């Protein structure tokens, strides 16, 4: 694995910028979207060349009813600073009622997360239809701005005491810094192959 000019991980602090990285903080957002509406809507946003931040990793599922709450927990465990859950508008579900079931579950789960201390601002729930590419861009941009204000979700990532970037088995899959608005490329020194290798935390996803 080549580590020359390893791009700077988004959200990572520049080496000379100790403790004042909030301005450069690029949130990592995981979006769980339904195949029939929001994924198509996000596709439309892309083909329409709408301008939106690229911090969102989209995971496509058949239906919002398929989105289990453990997906959200796992996303936070694996380094997400915010999560978007999006699907078809009420009465538009491809499977008739999946979004109604999801609405009930996430109404409860959102309160549960909040009660355990996860700021509900880190979670966005939205209905985005296949024709609402513009709305998707707005949802993405608003979520990122909100999460950027909240800062990195270090409190959750650090629960197991091993959430530094060097321990992140997925660090090598990061997008180049230019794509996410990062500035300087990190020096190759100190990022040897060993520190980039999976750290054996167990791939559960």
């Amino acid at each position: 694995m080549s580590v020359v000019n390893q791009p700077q991980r988004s959200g990572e602090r520049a080496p000379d910028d100790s403790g004042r990285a909030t301005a450069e903080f690029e949130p990592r957002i995981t979006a769980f979207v339904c195949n029939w509406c929001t994924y198509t809507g996000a596709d439309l946003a892309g083909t329409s060349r709408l301008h939106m931040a690229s911090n969102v990793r989209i995971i496509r599922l058949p239906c919002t009813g398929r989105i289990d709450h453990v997906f959200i927990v796992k996303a936070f465990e694996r380094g997400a600073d915010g999560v978007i859950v999006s699907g078809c508008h009420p009465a538009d579900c491809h499977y008739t009622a999946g979004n109604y079931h999801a609405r009930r579950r996430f109404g409860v789960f959102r309160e549960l997360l909040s009660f355990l201390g996860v700021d509900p601002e880190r979670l966005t729930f939205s209905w985005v239809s296949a024709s609402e590419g513009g709305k998707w861009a707005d949802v993405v941009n608003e979520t990122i701005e909100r999460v950027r204000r909240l800062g990195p979700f270090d409190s959750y990532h650090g629960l197991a005491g091993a959430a530094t970037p060097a321990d992140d088995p997925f660090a090598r899959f990061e997008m180049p810094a230019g794509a996410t608005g990062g500035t300087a490329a990190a020096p190759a020194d100190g990022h040897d192959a060993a520190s980039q290798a999976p750290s054996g935390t167990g791939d559960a996803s």
Partner: protein
Amino acid sequence: MSELQDTARRLLDEGLVQVVIGWEEGPRGARPVFVTSAADCERLIFDARCVHNLATFLNPRRSQITALGKAAVVVKGCDAKAVAGLLREAQLERAGIVLIGVRCGGVAGEPATLAPPALSAETVSARCWGCDVREPESVDMLVGEAQPEPPVTADLDERVAALDALSPAERFAFWTKELSRCTQCYACRQACPLCCCERCIVEKTEPQWIETSPHPRGNFAWHLTRAQHLAGRCVGCGECERACPVGIPLGLINRKLQQVVYELYGYTVSEDPAVPAPIGAYATDDTQDFIE
């Protein structure tokens, strides 16, 4: 409590059931007992130490108990709600069990005492706060004398509200501290009458959704999942909290979710199995203030 013993004896003598699940006097206080012969019915007791929710033993996956035959179960009001939960989810058939209801005046927080304690605000179990089924109605027979109201204990809602008043970061710190003690022994799951999945999600390894190593991250995932799976189902019997060897205040989480399902969907735990649970049902006009 001879009325309870006589009822159990009659059920066994007439062959209506093969086992009566109740409580007996153990070496360290009250404990569950499985009575299979009429001669043993004199062991059955009911007093303020009988805190265990015996509906747990009706879980159809507990094959060593179902193997004993048709069961009669002694239930308090809170236990009857748990039985209703199992009936609602088609885990049981009503004709397959006999329910002996007992009139309950509140139970102690701790069953392991040699004599029934005088119930006071200090000794009464937190589960008795706000109890509305001191005489279960869905039972086949009701035994015992009318009991006085249990003493008022610490207000669970006040403790939940105190946590709600904190900032998310402070709540996170509180729960990180509490959950860091968790060893993921799953006593909370085993004690719960409604945690009756054939295979719990925490035991799935491909993919492993919940880290089983007992660090706070895995513990958060476990307790979030346990609570979410019981949302709208938990009867508030408090057995999980009592079973917890490290004293995690699970009752707070359960109570919070009871409040949430009531505020969002107008649902309170019912003793009537015909009332659908809120998760699994839906209404087209459900609240969606939180959805953009």
